[in-house]
């Protein structure tokens, strides 16, 4: 198929950046969206131009590296699908496709389609863990966990930290990401001792980064490639309220 691509180009963090338009012929409809970008980059290199920088690694929808806003939608048109798992068969011959980086104050652009998402790491660093040193653990089956709870915790823990929720939100809120981690650990007995402290610290860090507040537009859930549910945001709010009331802070 034949495509017109309008791609965001930006040299570095300080550059203003802008769109460039490229024509691409001979794209196989079985190729993935990133393989289509490989073909574009090969073409650019052969023309002596600089290829488009973009984050990617696993290309299996699990590492959370890939991050393109495609025709205005984070990770493109398909539900529950990362950019790397999107295939060209979902586009038509002759289409014009606009590709931009995540747009959010909390995720500054480093180059072209690559953004800095280290704010997420800092939120985890603030409290997204269970404090257990290596070697301190009791026998695994001494902790019984209801299957249903364990499954719910798993579903929250399936978040890949891609940041599409932030990119999708008009307020650039990170509540879905934070809610997923708070839920994962709050649902399990292992997370219980630090339950209150964790949510307070993670929310404080989230607020210290440049993320906006949540106004319940649900755009995050709609664009999340892992189908992380907004019930996690509700749980985050409950946990936060409860922690605030009980911790005396």
């Amino acid at each position, binding site marked *: 198929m034949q495509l017109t691509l309008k791609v965001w180009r930006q040299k570095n963090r300080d550059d203003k950046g802008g769109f460039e338009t490229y024509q691409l012929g001979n794209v196989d409809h079985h*190729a993935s969206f990133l393989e289509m970008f490989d073909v574009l980059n090969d073409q650019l290199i052969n023309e002596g131009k600089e*290829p488009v920088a973009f984050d990617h690694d696993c290309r299996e929808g699990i590492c959370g590296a890939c991050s393109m806003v495609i025709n205005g939608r984070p990770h493109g048109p398909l539900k529950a699908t990362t950019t790397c798992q999107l295939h060209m068969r979902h586009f038509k011959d002759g289409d014009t496709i606009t590709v931009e980086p995540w747009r959010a104050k909390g995720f500054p652009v480093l180059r072209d389609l690559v953004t800095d998402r280290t704010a997420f790491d800092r939120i985890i660093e603030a409290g997204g863990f269970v404090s257990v040193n290596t070697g301190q653990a009791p026998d695994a089956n001494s902790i019984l966990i209801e299957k249903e709870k*364990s499954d719910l915790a*798993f579903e929250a823990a*399936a978040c890949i930290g891609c940041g599409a929720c932030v990119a999708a939100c008009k307020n650039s809120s990170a509540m879905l990401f934070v809610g997923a981690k708070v839920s994962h650990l709050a649902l399990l007995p292992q997370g219980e001792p630090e339950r209150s402290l964790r949510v307070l610290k993670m929310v404080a860090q989230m607020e210290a980064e440049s993320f906006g507040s949540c106004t319940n537009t649900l755009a995050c859930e709609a664009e999340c490639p892992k189908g992380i549910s907004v019930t996690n945001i509700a749980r985050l709010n409950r946990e936060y309220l409860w922690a605030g009331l009980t911790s005396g802070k």
Partner: protein
Amino acid sequence: MALDAKIPAGPLESKWTNYRSTVKLVSPANKRKLDVIVVGTGLAGASAAASLAELGYNVKVFCYQDSARRAHSIAAQGGINAAKNYRNDGDSIYRLFYDTIKGGDYRAREANVYRLAEASVSIIDQCVAQGVPFAREYGGLLDNRSFGGVQVSRTFYARGQTGQQLLIGAYQALERQVGLKNATLYTRHEMLEVVIKDGKSAGIIVRDLVTGEIQRHGAHAVVLATGGYGNVFFLSTNAMGCNTTAIWRAYKKGAYFGNPCFTQIHPTCLPQHGDYQSKLTLMSESLRNDGRVWVPKAKGEKRKAADIPESERDYYLERKYPSFGNLVPRDIASRAAKEVCDEGRGVGSTGLAVYLDFADAIKRLGQDVVSARYGNLFEMYDKITGEDPYTSPMMIYPAVHYTMGGLWVDYNLMTTIPGLYATGECNFSDHGANRLGASALMQGLADGYFVLPYTIGEYLSGEILSGKIDTNSEAFVAAEEAVKSRLSFFTNNKGNKSVDYFHKQLGKVMWDDCGMARSKESLTRAATEIAKIKEAFWKEVRVPGTDKEFNQELEKAGRVADFIELGMLMVQDALSREESCGGHFRTEYQTPEGEAMRRDDQYMFVSAYEFKGDDTAAQLHKEELKYEVVHPTQRSYK
């Protein structure tokens, strides 16, 4: 230098226990004076970095991704083995040890593998305590499943995302240490050189991938946990950035490289379909628990799978290996698939695929159960191929997946360079000539949580009086210069071909001539071809942009330059090992039934290669393998 594996004396079952009670310790006050660098944040690196920081060492951690959580371990699907015997099905530490040694076709060290099996038990405890949501039964206990090459259920899993959940556990433990200021994390930093001073490891040179800045980092010990090198084949199931650079730099500075040609080709991957393809996707081996592998009995069959009656299907694994059936080890399953396709019985548009069929499982268990077990894998298959595996069988073909070879390490996980360690997939140590499913995650975490934190003390106890490492020394200056000149060579070269162009050429040669089947003839041809690719690469490669900015082509160029050299060493190793074992199949050496024929009388050793210069063949050193407990036999899964 003679190779000394430093295996502790005493009976197999007590070696590690005795070692731990006699190993030299470093006091907490002294740990604070010692700096340790960990390169890599996969399961091996993140677990080591977190544990060492908890112990009180000053830890610096590096990875090339934008977050430590994105290391390639995240993609592991099926599960992790542990000898918990929660199923009461006869499992034990000895049995896990035995299965791993046998699965590795008797080319791994007994003492290391026994220790691995011992540590496996604590790994599950540790991960559960961190909040890893493993699959559970209704009673609240942990669930298990089985994997290829074994007859017990000892694999713990979290749907099809076990690697993700384990890595997030280790990543969170690491981030906790970062918050406590015991560890410093450098993401988007690539290690490009190791620094050796006075015959010991002194630190590394890294490039900040955002600004291009070259930095020196000194440490009393350096741990490489940089993963496997399957991407030497261009197409593999590895993440795009997986590379050999860190261990290749170490090799060129004097660390020996163990069994470079031992590559695992995984039987259940999506078949290749076009030239633009950038990677191959694995469909977890756990699928073989319930999926049945078959091809039509007739050559050139054109009917759709559903239209081929039972009597005209050949369930060749069940036929040839009745006791293990669809769960034979990977090397055997892969070769069997290649064999039926070579006979002209392959399916799909290229004829390079076999069916993996769930119709029986769906009938027996119901779609709900199948979907609970494999739902995300089925979805992934559908997304990539546009076909629904609930209604028509999957098509699969073998693909490069894992490299058993890697830096040679002794029992302490130390390379031949004092103070330089290698853990996880990047060392050669535990899987012999073939790795069993669900054992890589086990090894990475055993190394990082439970082995290295002890063994590193043995060396570091001698470094307490060294003081801070001076990064202004001649050794650092020279290493930095070498890195800079290589980078500027690339950006200034007036070539006209992209890095990928050469990588694809290399991959094709490696796959065709040093892949699932190898012969003297194919390997000799490969050696000539790779030499040509190397020459052309350095003349004709084009890297746009500069080295002072974010430049992904420049990153790739360095990696591919190292892959080309590694490819040559793999071919040299495959040529010199005149036997078949595990994933290394030399067509000249097979039994009358076409199975791998080991030659224990001549090749019962680890090949460890020493770098001798760019234009000279590497020198082979042999570490004899002594089997004191297990008696090697012809591996049989019939």
